[in-house]
């Protein structure tokens, strides 16, 4: 992997859109191992997946690995097909990220399976679309949101940095780190 890093150009440290800005809190950069621990500590973490899974099979793979490590998946309609084909039973398969965000914003919502989510990971979205949804969640909810996408997402609570061509590597690190821990429902 160290070799792979050498080959790939390091993406610049800037916003996917330099005009996608905010006055307030920007996402903290998070490292895969730290995130893995955070997921491990969460009561009901969930991964929301998006349309890039149709373009990039590796993303499907990583989502499946996360699922196998006990992270529940909300597959937006844009991404459910390949996940289901790999045997994932997503908590939802037809709703859009827009729906999911609207639901997450409602404190009275108890999730698709009767339990509210406390940590929400996002993978595989158009950056500009995800950015808006993370902005909604940042301003109007108290949820902890994490972008594990290839572009840094300023409106998330935590985000991977711009990884671009290194995206698969950082996801690999993440699932590896997660593999050791036990994900899923914890005692209160």
């Amino acid at each position, binding site marked *: 992997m160290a070799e792979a890093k050498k080959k790939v*150009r390091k*993406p*610049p440290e*800037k*916003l*996917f*859109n*330099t005009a*996608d*800005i*905010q*006055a*307030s*809190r920007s996402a903290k950069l998070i490292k895969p191992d730290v995130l893995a621990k955070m997921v491990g500590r969460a009561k009901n973490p969930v991964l929301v997946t*998006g*349309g890039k899974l*149709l373009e990039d099979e590796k993303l499907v793979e990583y989502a499946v690995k996360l699922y196998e490590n006990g992270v529940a998946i909300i597959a*937006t*309609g*844009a991404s*459910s*097909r*390949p996940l*289901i*084909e790999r045997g994932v039973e997503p908590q*939802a*398969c*037809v*709703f*859009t*990220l*827009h*729906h999911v*965000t*609207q*639901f997450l*914003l*409602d404190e*009275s*919502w108890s999730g*698709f399976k009767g339990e509210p989510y406390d940590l929400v990971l996002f993978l595989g*979205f*158009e*950056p*500009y*679309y995800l950015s*808006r*949804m993370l*902005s*909604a969640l*940042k*301003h*109007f909810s108290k949820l902890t949101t994490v972008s594990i996408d290839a*572009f840094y997402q300023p409106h998330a609570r935590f985000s991977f940095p711009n990884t671009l061509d290194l995206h698969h590597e950082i996801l690999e690190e993440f699932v590896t780190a997660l593999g050791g821990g036990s994900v899923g429902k914890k005692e209160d």
Partner: protein
Amino acid sequence: MDLELREGIFVLDEMRNVSIKIGRIIDEEEEKEKEWEPLGPTPKPHILDLRHWDRRLLERYEPIYAPMQDFCNLCTMGPCELSQNKEGACGIDLKTQKARLVTLACLIGASSHTAHARHLVHYLIEKFGHDYPIDLGGDINVEAPNIRLVFGIKPKKLGDLEKVLDYVEQDLVRILHTTHTGQEEDHLDYESKAMHVGMLDHVAMEVADIAQVVAFNYPLGDPNAPLIDIGFGVLETEKPVILVIGHNILPARNIDDYLREHGLEDEVEIAGLCCTAIDTTRYDPKAKIVGTLSYELRAIRSGIPDVVVTDEQCIRADTLRECSKLGIPVIASSEAAARGLPDRTHENPDVIVNDLVSGRAKGVLIRDPDKVGEIAVRVAMEIRKKKGKKPPFMSEEELKTEIDRCTGCMNCVFACPHNLRIDKAMSAAKDGDFSVFKTVEDSCIACGRCEQVCPRDIRIVDVIMKASYDSLVRKTGKMRAGRGPIQDTEIRNVGQPIVMGTIPGIIAPIGCPNYPKARNEIVEIIEEFLKRKFIVVSSGCHAMDLGMYRDEDGKSLYEKYPGAFDAGCLTNVGSCVANSHISGAAIKVANIFAMRPLRANYAEIADYILNRVGAVGLAWGPYSQKAASIATGFNRLGVPAVVGPHAAKYRRAFIGKVWKKEDWWVYDIKSKQRMYVEPCPDALLVVAETKEEAIVQLARLCIRPADTYMGRQIKLTHYIELSKKYLGCLPDDWHLYVRTEADLPLKMKDELLKILEEEHGWKIDWSKKKILEGPIRPYDSGFNPTILEEVFEKYAR
């Protein structure tokens, strides 16, 4: 005796000593009322008159806000940070501020159509007179459903349209007023105002389109309107080429007239971009369409046009700069976009032509559309004579030079609205592999932001275009010319099937061209529904895009599917302003099929549509303020819309919560009860990220509470089939829409009943295959839903 006088001072000759006693002045509304139908509750509604309806919608379809910026800097007390819904110096919070901005965006959009309509009506009255009749032909008796519904009159002549615009303008200004600092403190009140603006927009669009349809003899609701050449490849580059860009036909029409009057129609090409192109082909089917906004920069950069004529809206704000670089003169013709050019409206055309041809003037402003034709044609012909055959826009050597200069800094990737990997394409191209560039071109809207940030000033747009240039300049398609309104007979034919649900829905692809994916995506989506016998009705940029793509047999969708407003047909109503015929069609279903009173009866009709008419808009690439306003107008009318991912940047959508049972109720006029219903449609505006997701959402949003079991069965069948096909699963919520076993898709009945029993705990009588317990409500064929007390009271008496 009817004596109609316009305002003014009248001299009655030879009547000096006659004393005229004026009797009772009959109000015009009163007079017309006798003719057609009684005045409804809300003629010329002002801001708050339909607020009760909006509130009903907004309770269910809660706005979701996705801030673009978390501060406000509209007044000098600011900028104020509003993050986490903080309040600014004026006390406004972030949600309310976002709703205020949405209102402002809708105002900009609606005012565009209104100013366009005003310009057309003013011009046409000057040409054809105040009394020029509004006659859309025998099959279109309900000539102006939006005007009837909102304003409460039946416009008979062009002059009648003026007062409609007076009203629209007055209310737009009233609402613009409300965006001043220190007004609303509740975001729902701004949303209600935005909805009002959207409604007015449809009225203004209707004014604009019926005025031009009747005055310029556009097709009158003709399902067989002619097929038009479309695509970059339609340009006959051996001829002088006049490129018209914008949304207002007047200058282009004058050019077309000039060519015909001078027998030059085969000598000079007139081709258009955006809605001006569409309307020009409605006027003259021989005119050609290059494409949408995303072809503007390409069309200029290609160097093909000999002269560019701009009118208004959606014209790149670097048009003059770009044209000047290539020595292409620009004629600006609109007060809305004077482009900094000198006003030479009243000068001798010879002098102007000379200045433009010689290059002494980069461009001119000609404010009178009737004067544009001669100048544009003469300039095009003389320039062509002077310059001869056009050189290729970029040579192979230039291409190589540009590519070689790339350092891979990736500035372009981060400036690109779609973060396209131009760096990788450059890198591959250096090694002779241009395939990555072809992929980039597929998603490139040629906005040029990449070039703005390139430290080496590489002509990136040109490089991208060059990589696909050969296929680009060969690309041609066919679009059916905008037919204008839907005929009353068509409505009569499809009204019942739509309301019963046996026509599974109306899909309306409308909107702009900034969707990121390949341009054939919209074709794929729409063909799925055409094959499934939905009605498809399109307009504007999407109507163009639908014509751009040919299948293996070389046929575009317009050639494969008939142009009627009927199941499995593809109708193009026309340009942006023709969107009013789509809302008009929904209104006409309620009026002509269901006989609901139309006149000044907005809330009842919208309530009817929401509960019964399975129409859904699709704006796959909406970019403009006009699109925001049009969509909001559809939403107020009870028509949901699915929008592409960029539309998240509109900051606000309307999404209900399917899991909140208490949100989904209606009054049933038949049973005289308030009851819970299935959550359909569950959203008025929702983003889909991929075509797969869009297809499923469209099918889903066609479901309506009033569906008969036959209708529901058909709609559920499509929904479930499409979900399985594109999502690989049964949709999560299908069971919510089941009221009776008769609602279930026939082929899957057993399987689904089993799931209902096992996964959802419903009670099934397996001997009769009947549902005993489970649904939100039982099915009743007389079910007659409304969410309005006033409608309930009116019919439940």
